[in-house]
């Protein structure tokens, strides 16, 4: 039996006040979520407890107690204030997974800023789109990534400060400032920004089918949901050693790589390196990790390396395994039982929901391949795709719909209220995913309801890729779709028509692939290019992605009567 106890009992009698009371949220008028992730833990007498252990690729380690978290986040907050930054300024974190990335997240919140974490593998185009939309005022980066910012800075008039962490000896350019967390003055006290519960906290960008990526804006009160879901769904407690493999450039890496574990007073471990099954198993064994939150893509990569690789290590420390990002296939659940002696528990949520909304719980029977059941306090149903009326017949596929009102729900899309409003139909928030519900209340994921590509657990917008493709000198028309992939669920495939004078060959294919990887990100990089003479379009000239995607998935193409040509 896990922290949640009886799921049925909790679901029936739940109220978010339970979480607020445990956290003492709002005590003495304090609503700033950063306080609950470090200062409160110290005030409870646990300042000397290890908040996180960081391990670099070469095995170097750094340790930070909750007291260190409290002090160093104050360092960041004071530094930003002294630079002239104000509450609600958007402050971007664009760094690899170094300790400063995690601590600055709290520092920004402490001075009232809105944190805008971005995945450090983003290329300059992806970075520019998101910084421009947010009107970002300052950005923390490292020497490794600063050049990407230099290439776009002239086009970003709002970006007043570029702060280079651990800048090294090489000189910086004009208007860049070097910052060292450890060498910066430590303020004796820092008066936290008196955020109200609805004050903006985090801005996470996510992709849609059309238009630019959208900034899902969250508020300080989100911690009410992140705290209790971490406790009940991830089943963490202060005695655990917890590892979340997600990068804080994505929502999992902040909701459950920062806020969830630290508000619970848990010790987490962070590995700043690329994927290697041997290294991952060594890491688990060395640090005696008890709770592990990772993604199906990683699990399938581990599967590829076999159970023998697992058996070389003593992983008996693992107590609870959870997965997020894309549907966890039944084979992965079954393999995990064989390899680790316990299953991975699937969890479902998205950038907009801010916290887990449907999941499997310790103590509950797992049906391999199912997403599980709604979290207490979350009313989830499926609705008809056309009428948005609730579907009551078990096994019928519809759109996943949530009743608005849980604390971690996004409050708007930055600068895009119209898009935000379009997500609600007949009083329900429509997630954009299709699912059915069986006669025992388990949800079964079917797929996306739009053209967004879910690759390796990350959503990639086809429009952004198509626009970037058109910047390539050889391309006159482009379309991007998801194609099936055994490891990443989907990968990007691009269809391109060439300008006269360009020859479709392997050199050009590699050039296009690398072009997108550098402009946008490795996730958005097409893993296959198909050269076509022209793309199928509707009479109004819109590219028929549906047709291209259906061909990749071997699905029925459906009505093609509106096609102009084929």
């Amino acid at each position, binding site marked *: 039996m896990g922290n949640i106890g009886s799921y049925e009992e909790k679901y029936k009698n739940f109220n978010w006040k339970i979480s607020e009371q445990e956290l003492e949220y709002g005590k003495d008028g304090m609503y700033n979520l950063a306080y609950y992730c470090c200062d409160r833990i110290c005030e409870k007498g646990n300042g000397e407890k290890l908040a996180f252990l960081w391990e670099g690729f070469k095995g170097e380690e750094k340790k930070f107690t909750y007291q260190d978290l409290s002090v160093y986040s104050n360092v960041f907050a004071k530094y930003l204030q002294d630079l002239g930054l104000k509450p609600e300024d958007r402050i971007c974190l664009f760094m690899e997974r170094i300790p400063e990335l995690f601590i600055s997240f709290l520092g920004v919140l402490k001075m009232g800023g809105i944190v805008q974490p971005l995945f450090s593998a983003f290329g300059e185009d992806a970075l520019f789109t998101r910084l421009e939309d947010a009107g970002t005022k300052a950005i923390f980066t490292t020497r490794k990534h600063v050049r990407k910012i230099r290439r776009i800075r002239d086009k970003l008039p709002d970006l007043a400060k570029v702060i280079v962490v651990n800048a090294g000896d090489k000189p910086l350019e004009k208007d860049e400032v070097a910052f060292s967390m450890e060498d910066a003055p430590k303020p004796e006290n820092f008066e936290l920004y008196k955020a109200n519960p609805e004050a903006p906290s985090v801005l996470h960008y996510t992709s849609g089918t059309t238009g630019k990526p959208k900034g899902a804006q969250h508020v300080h009160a989100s911690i009410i949901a992140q705290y209790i879901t971490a406790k009940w769904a991830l089943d963490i407690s202060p005695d655990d050693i917890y590892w979340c493999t997600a990068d804080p450039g994505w929502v999992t890496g902040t909701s459950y790589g920062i806020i969830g574990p630290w508000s619970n007073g848990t010790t987490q471990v962070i590995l700043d390196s690329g994927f290697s099954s041997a290294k991952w198993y060594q890491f688990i064994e060395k640090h005696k990790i008890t709770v592990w939150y990772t993604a199906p893509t990683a699990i399938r990569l581990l599967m590829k390396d076999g159970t023998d690789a697992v058996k070389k290590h003593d992983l008996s420390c693992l107590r609870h395994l959870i997965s997020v990002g894309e549907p966890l296939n039944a084979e992965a659940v079954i393999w995990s039982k064989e390899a680790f002696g316990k299953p991975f528990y699937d969890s479902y949520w998205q950038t907009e929901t801010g916290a887990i909304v449907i999941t499997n719980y310790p103590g509950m029977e797992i049906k391999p391949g199912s997403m599980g059941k709604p979290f207490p306090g979350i009313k989830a149903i499926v609705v008809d795709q056309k009428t948005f009326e609730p579907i009551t017949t078990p096994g019928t596929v519809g759109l996943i719909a949530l009743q608005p009102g849980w604390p971690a729900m996004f409050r708007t899309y930055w600068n895009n209220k119209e898009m935000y409003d379009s997500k609600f139909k007949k009083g329900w928030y429509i997630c954009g995913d299709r699912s059915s519900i069986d006669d025992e209340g388990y949800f079964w994921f079917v797929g996306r309801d739009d053209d967004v590509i879910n690759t390796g657990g990350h959503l990639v917008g086809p429009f952004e890729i198509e626009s970037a493709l058109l910047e390539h000198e050889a391309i006159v028309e482009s379309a991007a779709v998801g194609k099936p992939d055994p490891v*990443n669920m989907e990968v990007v495939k691009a269809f391109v028509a060439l300008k006269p004078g360009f020859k479709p060959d*392997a050199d050009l294919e590699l050039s296009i692939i690398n072009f997108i*990887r550098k402009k946008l990100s490795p996730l958005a990089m097409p893993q296959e290019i198909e050269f076509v003479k022209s793309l199928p379009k509707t009479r109004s000239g819109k590219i028929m992605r549906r047709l291209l995607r259906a061909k990749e998935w071997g699905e029925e193409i459906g009505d093609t009567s509106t096609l102009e040509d084929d």
Partner: protein
Amino acid sequence: MSEEIKKLIIEYVEKEYLEEEDEQDVDENTPLISSGIVDSFSMVSLKMFLEKKFDIKIPDEKATTEAFDSVNNIMELLKEFNVS
């Protein structure tokens, strides 16, 4: 010949996967995937480069993160295709 091939791959990795401000040096033993220099998605472009350069086809089951984790590992893989 094999030294030339190693040099070619190292140059490609440095040009395509390192930022100009990146202070990391790459040699034949430098971990590529596990260090994060080349992420598992970008491995596809490295594979494509090798296939194109040496006119070979590397099956997916051989394109593991381990096989691509250093230039020396890649050299071992290439031997299977009589490239050395």
